[in-house]
């Protein structure tokens, strides 16, 4: 299997899921930095 150096492993096949995941993680990060 190819190895992507420096890239985050992303096995989400569903684009909608990938976007939702990204939004959630950014929201969590923003929440942590505002506290």
């Amino acid at each position, binding site marked *: 299997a190819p190895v992507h150096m420096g890239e985050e492993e992303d096995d989400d096949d*569903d684009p*909608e*899921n*990938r976007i*939702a*995941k990204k939004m*959630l*993680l950014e*929201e*969590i990060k923003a929440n942590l930095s505002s506290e």
Partner: protein
Amino acid sequence: LKAENERLFAEFSDFCAQHTGDHPEVMSYLASRHQKTNPEYLASVEFRNVLGRCLTRVQARSSKVYVYINEICTVFKAHSQKKKPPLGP
């Protein structure tokens, strides 16, 4: 209704936790949002309907787990007990 919603939310959380092992902070965030949500809303028919729908869908399509977690988080934010004051100009 409150007990039923709590049971549904626990079921939703358990299922999602099994499919978000790569990002456990997501489930912690969902739990913290749940705690900050208006108790009246948590015991409402509206919440039961949203939760029931998301639970059924996520169980049928676990590949969209973050979509449904995001949807529940959005609902929790909309019914949060602590509303931030609107930003000034």
